[in-house]
């Protein structure tokens, strides 16, 4: 054999090799390879197939922001220290986490365990992307009964359900925290107006009365901040007034039902009739409560660390004001959580990690690290809620334990429906136009979108 390995031969082989490698590396998984949601074989096999000698590698993904990643790593490190057979590769995504996750899922490369989005539980579970963990939870003795029911309900979904939350339905994730709504007030503004601080007996009417005494629109000082619909769609005002946004079977939109319509009208009145709240367009670019523009605000508990940086005034928290007739101060327990993707090769280890993150030990650690608000175990969470500032942070937890429901924003096609029906309400709040007409239009659009969503639901 006298043929030499020439430069050209080398280049040919190298070129072909490169091309082959490129093709192999870039070949995507075909869409649609995901199987429908059926009970997984892995569920029953968890206890029977441990391989303790072998290191199990898990990919864990999470969104992150300042300080959060360190807290998360701290909890994961505890897990790895106690589980020497498991390695965890963390993917911490600072921006647009859900887009990244969705792309991973579409590409067939989801992590094993990830932070979940309650708004996608139905579509992901229905599409067969998630691992059903009902039996894993039951078999492991995980203390799910000690968690706040509303938080867990966000991760219960039964085949055929349009929304999460059916009692006894399958579990597709575990909640990671228990985000309450806070009712914060600026003590200095109350003092200056000579108004007594809010108490647990306050009703909506007391809020208005105090707001009128405090408001000085010319000086850009307002009594209350009406939250944007992304917040109040968490439901509390409408629910407190005895309303529901949809019928129990989710076939009929009821934005125009008495309770919901009353609550929307009440919020609009705070701006344009009582004039105790700044119109949305005149709200400060920073949080108007933090800038001292408003004396009272209802917002997510996640604002506590930011509010805690305020040095210009003193502030505190109270339980939500009650509806004057129903006496309800119901709030939302809102929780991202953890889910396991169905394609994981390490079901047992993934569930162990998830149990640690969602369990009492992990939640306690999160509470100590302050960057994550615990907990679905009220007694574990109390440690965080009894910290200061403010003095009465625990009021939010008390409200949560006394009267709370799962987040409303969990139903199928939630963002399509709300994205279509809420702009008329938005416009009425921004421009001060007829809010009743906006409610009617909103409900009409919501019904149309709901009908379309059901059609899609039944096709998918």
């Amino acid at each position, binding site marked *: 054999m006298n043929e030499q390995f020439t430069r050209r031969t080398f280049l040919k082989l190298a070129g072909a090799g490169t091309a082959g490698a490129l093709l192999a590396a*870039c070949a995507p998984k075909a869409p649609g390879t995901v199987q429908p949601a059926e009970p997984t074989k892995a569920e029953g096999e968890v206890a029977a197939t441990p391989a303790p000698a072998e290191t199990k590698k898990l990919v864990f993904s999470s969104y992150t922001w300042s300080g959060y990643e360190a807290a998360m790593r701290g909890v994961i490190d505890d897990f790895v220290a106690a589980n020497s057979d498991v390695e965890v590769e963390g993917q911490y995504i600072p921006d647009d986490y859900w887009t990244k996750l969705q792309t991973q899922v579409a590409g067939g490369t989801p992590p094993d365990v990830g932070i979940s989005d309650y708004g996608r539980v139905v579509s992901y579970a229905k599409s067969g992307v998630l691992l059903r963990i009902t039996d894993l939870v039951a078999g492991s003795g995980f203390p799910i009964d000690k968690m706040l029911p509303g938080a867990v309900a966000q991760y219960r979904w039964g085949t055929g359900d349009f929304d999460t939350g059916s009692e006894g339905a399958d579990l597709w994730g575990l909640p990671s925290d228990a985000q309450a709504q806070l009712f914060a007030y600026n003590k200095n503004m109350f003092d200056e107006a000579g108004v007594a601080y809010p108490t647990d007996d306050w009703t909506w009417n007391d809020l208005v009365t105090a707001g009128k005494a405090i408001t000085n629109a010319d000086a850009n000082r307002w009594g209350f901040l009406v939250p944007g619909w992304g917040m109040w769609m968490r439901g509390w005002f409408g629910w407190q007034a005895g309303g529901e946004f949809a019928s129990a079977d989710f076939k009929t939109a009821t934005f125009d039902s008495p309770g919901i319509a009353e609550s929307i009208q009440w919020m609009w009145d705070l701006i344009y009739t009582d004039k105790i709240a700044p119109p949305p367009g005149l709200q400060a670019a920073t949080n108007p409560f933090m800038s001292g523009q408003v004396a009272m605000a209802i917002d997510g508990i996640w604002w506590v660390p930011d509010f805690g940086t305020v040095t210009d005034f003193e502030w505190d928290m109270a339980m939500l004001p009650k509806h004057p007739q129903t006496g309800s101060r119901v709030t939302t327990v809102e929780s991202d959580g953890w889910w396991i993707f169905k394609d994981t090769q390490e079901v047992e280890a993934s569930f162990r990690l998830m149990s640690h993150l969602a369990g009492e030990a992990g939640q306690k650690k999160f509470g100590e690290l302050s960057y994550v608000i615990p907990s679905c175990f009220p007694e574990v969470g109390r440690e965080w809620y009894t910290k200061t500032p403010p003095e009465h942070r625990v009021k939010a937890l008390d409200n949560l334990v006394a009267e709370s429901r799962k987040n409303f924003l969990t139903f199928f096609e939630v963002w399509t429906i709300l994205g279509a029906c809420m702009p008329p309400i938005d416009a009425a709040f*921004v421009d001060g136009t007829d809010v009743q007409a906006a409610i009617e239009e909103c409900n009409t659009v919501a019904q149309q979108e709901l009908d379309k969503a059901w059609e899609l639901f039944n096709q998918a």
Partner: protein
Amino acid sequence: MRKQTLHGMRRQEGFLGWLFVAPMALGICIFQIYPILFSLYISLTQWNLVGAPRWLGIQNYVNLFTEERYFPKAMSNTGTYAVGTIVPGIALGIVFAMLLNQKIAGRFAYRAIYFIPVVAPTVALGVLWQWIYEPHFGILNAVLKVFGVQGPAWLGSTHWAMRSMIIFALWQGLGFNIVIFLAGLQSISTEYYEAAEIDGANALQRFLHITLPLLSPVTFFMLVTGVIGACQDFVTPYILTGGGPANATLMAVMFLYGKAFREQHMGLASAVAYILFAVIVTLTIINFRLGKKWVFYEEAV
């Protein structure tokens, strides 16, 4: 050793040539052509990213015009934004380029200053302008207040939000327009102006009959690229207003993004992309056709 024929050598050279370009060609095929064709296919399906795509034919395209209540709004907002940024942008670019084309002290510094917003990240500029527009603490309303004018809620009003966004875009793009028109101005031979002066033409006549016609290729370039850029703008509304209030600044690409990644309607989002592509191509063809009537190329004389 077997002798190679000339034909064989050419074939081998050709093969090697293809081999060398293969990585780039493969990259283009895999990362550009394949996604383009795949998104065309997806635009004909209903797909939520996690399940299997369901074939719909042209239904997504039909739905955009019959059922998607905010698609027409997004397209008309995009049109308003395009007109609002391109026409004044070109006019301001010419004016400032002529000013900076004068032999004034510090003109290089001025040119650099005007160009800073072009190279600065839009996100940072957007945040900066959110503060400028801030209704109570912002500098814009503070300045207006000095003159006894109560400034509006610039970004928080359905009436003002689009105008505010256009003002921001004009400010941000001005430096680029200036540089391009400056290059155009400096390529115009001074002989034309000298001849016109000898013939008694005044400054306005020289501008109208020499400068503008000889700048027309540059103006045409700015028009075509401006239309494309305005139709594709995403960052400006995303950072400044998020498309609000009440969809007052919702633009085509924001609509697309919302459909794709917020609502998980990838088919519909892909259809929006193709419609936008068709609109851009159509406008570009129209521009080229109309351009033949008003664009004056010096070398064609």
